């Protein structure tokens, strides 16, 4: 496997400006011209809308008529209305399925496998990574079919004699959200495995040999050598998967529309629903701002952890 190059500067592990460790570069004023298009696009289509979103979140507005200033009432609603708060709780559950499970699984598998040098990894890598590439709408349609009452999953359960476990997965109050989550696990696991295999391939064999001479068991090896060496990859994997969980939209839109009841609503879905169906633009934008804040905090925290001990 190609060792991952340039791991020093993945976006996920961007460091705070710590002086110019690279070459200083030539001082040039023409640089402003070069960055002008990027700054313009960024300002018009990210910064300005973001500010407007924050502003909208302080108003009550149906998206059509006049608006009225309500201060922080929309935020109060986000934290007090069970349906809106529920969306964030569901997102937390999804994080377990999208991030925690794939990362854990990926780490354990990669650790056991990295002890052997395998040939033909290229093929597996292509296949394992495939779920990342397929449009979510297509993924959703495929999994909807799998979860059908008479679909392959229930067929399998009945085939092995577990009839009692067969159920209408997406219509079951207890199972609908985990069922959506498992799709996330499916999407994320290959990515994590590929990442960690790449990371562990760079660990010098001698380290393990030395540890073994010291009488370290597999667990100690894992904690003392493997885990610290893939800290960067861990941060990347967590960032990618956690953010994917927080931003779930297509999957819910196509698979469940938030049902049964409101068991599978997620923040993004509520943003859309409130803004464009219920005519509650203020609530929707307040939700969006809270979601953005959560994404920021999560990214920063994960990368702080990823950075620590790396230098």
């Amino acid at each position, binding site marked *: 496997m190609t060792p991952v190059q340039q791991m020093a500067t993945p976006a996920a592990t961007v460091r705070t400006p710590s002086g110019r460790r690279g070459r200083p570069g030539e001082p040039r004023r023409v640089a402003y011209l070069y960055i002008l298009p990027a700054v313009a696009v960024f300002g018009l289509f990210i910064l300005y809308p973001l*500010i407007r979103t924050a502003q909208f979140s302080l*108003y009550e*507005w149906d998206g059509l008529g006049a608006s009225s200033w309500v201060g922080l009432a929309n935020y109060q609603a986000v934290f007090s209305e069970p349906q809106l708060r529920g969306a964030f709780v569901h997102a937390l559950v999804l994080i377990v399925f999208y991030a925690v499970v794939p990362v854990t699984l990926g780490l354990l598998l990669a650790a056991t496998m990295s002890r052997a040098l395998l040939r033909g990894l290229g093929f597996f890598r292509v296949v394992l990574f495939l779920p990342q590439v397929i449009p979510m709408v297509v993924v959703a349609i495929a999994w909807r079919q799998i979860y059908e*009452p008479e679909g392959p999953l229930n067929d399998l359960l009945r085939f092995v004699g577990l009839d009692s476990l067969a159920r*209408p997965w997406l219509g079951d*109050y207890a199972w609908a959200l985990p069922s959506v989550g498992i799709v996330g696990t499916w999407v994320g696991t290959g990515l994590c495995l590929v990442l960690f295999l790449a990371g562990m391939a760079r660990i010098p064999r001698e380290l393990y040999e030395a540890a073994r001479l010291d009488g370290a068991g597999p667990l100690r090896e894992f904690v003392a050598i493997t885990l610290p060496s893939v800290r960067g990859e861990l941060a990347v994997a967590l960032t990618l998967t956690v953010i994917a969980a927080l931003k779930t939209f297509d999957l819910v839109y196509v698979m469940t*529309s938030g049902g*049964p009841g409101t068991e599978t609503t997620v923040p993004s879905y509520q943003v859309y*629903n409130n803004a*464009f169906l219920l005519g509650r633009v203020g609530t929707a934008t307040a939700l969006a701002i809270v979601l953005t804040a959560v994404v920021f905090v999560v990214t920063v925290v994960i990368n702080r952890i990823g950075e620590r001990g790396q230098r």
Partner: protein
Amino acid sequence: MRLFTRTSTRWGAAVAAALLIAACAPGDDGGDDDATEAPAAGDVQTDASQLGDITLTVWDQEVREGQTEQIEALNAAFEEAYPNITIERVSRSTDDLRTTLRLALSGEDAPDVVQANNGRPEMGQYVASGLLTPLDPYAEAYGWFDRFPESVRALASYSDDGATYGEGELYGLPQMGEIVGLYYNKTKLDALGLEPPATTEDFEAALTAAQAAGEIPIQFGNSEPWAGIHEFGFVQNQFSDAETIRNLGFGRPGSSWTSEDNLAAAEATVSWVDSGYFVDGFNGITYDSAWQSFSQGNGVFFVGGTWLIADLASAMGEEVGFVLPPAGASGQNLVTGGISIPWAIPANSDAQDAAAAYIDFITNSDAMTAVTEAGNVPVIEADQQTTEGLQAEVFAAWAQAGSEDLIVPYLDYATETFYDTITAAVQNLMGAEATPQQFLDTLEAEYTAATGS
């Protein structure tokens, strides 16, 4: 030269500039109200061939067998009659139309004709926001006031602030009549030695008998949650009276969700679920796979609307029958329904005259015949059509519902957000996530908040 003196100044300036731009509150600058005012009746050009070359964009939800057939036939006939008008048809499932219509109506190049659900969650909101054109001038010019009885027009009429439903100006015209009745499998009912149920007692006896015979008593799919509105309405119609249901459905003050009758209806729903009368796992079954499954012999009964006549008749032939819901406490066969989703003209349409001509064309007498021939119930003149088989049974039920004043509204009409509320609430009730009392409290809270009663 230095571009900026200090970092902080620079950022201060940038933020100040952004705030300046952002200073206007949302909605201040929007909607430059260039929507054309509705013309007076005398100005309406009713000869569509005089309108010049026009592309008419039509958004509909006529995706089921009989519906597609009639609208495609009528579109073709319209284009033939008016070669200067080209129809660009955009068809969506009812659900997808609902989720995208609001966005489309508020855009500058809105479609020219849309099907907008006549309840407050859709049409009511759109009228309140000035997104739909009042049709009264066209109604006068085309004689719609004579063509459609008051009872039909009221279902798509609002005051111009959208606050009052059932009177005011006309905002849409339906093609079809619609009732949610009881489809039954004739072969299976015969095998059980039963007649179609006329009363709730009969019905419950039939459910028990069907279950004892190893049949699925009621086929049901509630994955798209709107089916739950029909299912609960079907039960409520057997426990409450017409007046109460109409008040609740139209969002008029004077009734209560937490009445004893409604409690009895919610409890009956739960007890039917607990008894296993509904197919297993209904919350995870889609509406379409449910009726398909019913047509393939899984289930004795299916609570469904008249939009399924063509689909079910062609899948089941003589095997399927249709009756009004059983008569319960009120002694009447109350039935949920009224009109199919009406056709309306967006305020932002730039071809309103042509749009009106189109709506006139698809709702005139010839159109009613085309609607019937494709296997549907025309909203008017049903008694002038000849039908047979399942369609004839439905027509009989429709006629009875009209003459005995049995029709009660869809429950989601009540308030602007009632669709979301009641769909989730019914799923929760039937999924044993909420007790009957909690279910009713949820609905009552929103009803009283909206009606102020």
